[in-house]
């Protein structure tokens, strides 16, 4: 095996170990069932009642809004929060001290959170479909699935940056809690961003999920206007901002690890 292959195997193993730990922590702590599974189902049913009769695609609106809530909570919030827990449990020090890049530890958690988020989204889908008595009308199911997965990737990229903040400072949880619902609403998880005041739009476009969600709505809901530039440009914007976030995540993690070794507050929480 070449050195690069060895490093690749090591990174894959670290990611897999972290994913496994995240799964074990999840099943050991049922509190996550509420934000990732139960709350989205309730929101989904409420949305269904609100949008009922609003057109042929109301069901898609309801499922997308509630499903995204589950994804968002798991992928974005859960990954950063797990790092905050590492601080609280005192496990951040031994994890950083281990010869494994912390970025891949976070990546493992995000992969688990994506899986859990998808599961949550699936539950929302099943419950709302049962309540509605049939599946939603989807003009292009393949594009829907692909874009849905892409939305997850965009959320994961933002999640990595958020996790870096948790390594950087013990106050990251405070900051994230302030921005939690602003981000959820601002990126169009619950309903399209264009419904918000215009001044919020440029801020929303700084986040990859805003673009990806807009594209997802374009392909799912015929007649959807969104930002008005079509799903193709949405996709370009999503790919570009995701690439920027991925780049930021790699750089930020390296610098954050250096910073915490300079400051020496890894055991503070």
């Amino acid at each position, binding site marked *: 095996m070449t050195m690069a292959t060895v490093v690749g195997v090591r990174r894959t193993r670290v990611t897999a170990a972290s994913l496994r730990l995240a799964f*074990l*922590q999840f099943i050991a702590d049922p509190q996550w069932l509420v934000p990732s599974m139960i709350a989205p189902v309730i929101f989904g049913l409420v949305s269904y009642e609100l949008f009922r009769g609003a057109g042929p695609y109301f069901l898609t609106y309801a499922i997308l809004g509630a499903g995204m809530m589950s994804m968002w909570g798991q992928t974005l919030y859960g990954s950063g929060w797990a790092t905050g827990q590492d601080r609280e449990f005192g496990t951040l020090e031994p994890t950083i*001290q281990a010869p494994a890049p912390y970025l891949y530890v976070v990546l493992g958690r995000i992969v688990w959170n994506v899986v859990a988020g998808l599961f949550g989204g699936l539950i929302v889908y099943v419950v709302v479909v049962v309540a509605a008595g049939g599946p939603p009308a989807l003009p292009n199911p393949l594009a829907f699935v692909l874009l849905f997965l892409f939305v997850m990737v965009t959320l994961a990229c933002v999640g990595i940056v958020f996790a870096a903040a948790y390594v950087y400072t013990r106050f990251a949880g405070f900051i994230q809690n302030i921005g939690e619902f602003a981000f959820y609403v601002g990126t169009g998880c619950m309903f399209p961003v264009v419904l918000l005041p215009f001044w919020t739009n440029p801020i929303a476009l700084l986040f990859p999920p805003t673009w990806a969600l807009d594209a997802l709505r374009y392909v799912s809901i015929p007649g959807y206007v969104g930002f008005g530039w079509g799903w193709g440009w949405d996709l370009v914007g999503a790919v570009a901002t995701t690439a920027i976030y991925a780049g930021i995540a790699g750089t930020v993690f390296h610098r954050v690890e250096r910073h915490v070794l300079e400051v020496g507050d890894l055991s503070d929480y």
Partner: protein
Amino acid sequence: MSDSPAIEVRDLVRVFESRKGFLFNEVNRTQALKGVDLTVEPGEIFGLLGPNGAGKTTLVKILSTLLLPTSGTARVLGHDVARDADWLRPRIGLVLGGERGVYTRISGRENLRYFADLYGVPPGEREPRIQAVLERVDLASAADRRVEEYSRGMKQKLHIARGILHRPSILFLDEPTIGLDPKSARETRKLVRSLEGDGVTILLTTHYMFEAEELCPRLAVLSKGRIVANDTVDALRHRVGGDRTIEVEAYGFEDREHAALRALPGVSKVASEEFGPRVRLTLRIRTLETTPAHVAALLPGHPELSVRERRTSLEDVYLDLVEEEAT
């Protein structure tokens, strides 16, 4: 491995900054290490003693690549801790101990599986090696229980198991027996001694003098961020005034009696301590000439006079050194 020392620290300084105020514009600086020099040879168990806040944990964290020095150099296994952290980390074991630092909602075995993967223990060796370390720290029977059900001593054993799982060349043990009951503490010391047989270099910090004396042929005393002594226990005894100590207790002593005791041959130091109505004089003695009988002969007429001789303990040495530094 080369002939270079396992640990080589030169003029190491570490300053912590904390910010306060509404705009975090008030900066407090604390110098935790003030020019530390230290050398530890390969394969030895080296003790690091010091009161709370002396800088022991800071030094351990720098040496284990968890903290960067402000200035000075620290080399472990011949490599600079700031520049070569990636090379060093697989070769270092760190046991910070305490209630925190382990995942409490999963089992001890799962904790070890996770860290075995992070440390790159070969996949085929992972399970047998985990079982072996669990047996070595006497935790095998509780390995599949959640860590939150563990006692303090069991958690400490799990910390140690994690620290040795990847077979490090050097192990940092930060107060490994603090808070343990006597039986668990004794088992931990036995385990540490057995690691010496494996050729592992160990840096042990502790508050317990008997522990340092039992385990560490050489040790250093860190006080207020400085190394105030660094030698063998016997040499340190000599440095603080002799390896013989005579303790005299009575209901007070006169100044002329103090002076007479100080004038005895070989007496290097006389310390006085009051406890209740009684006063204890501690005489540090360098030679064999002065005996308890000589001392008693200088103190006639004291009711309930008590004179006894003992070997100068490491605790005496430590307290003398810390007191010396404080004054």
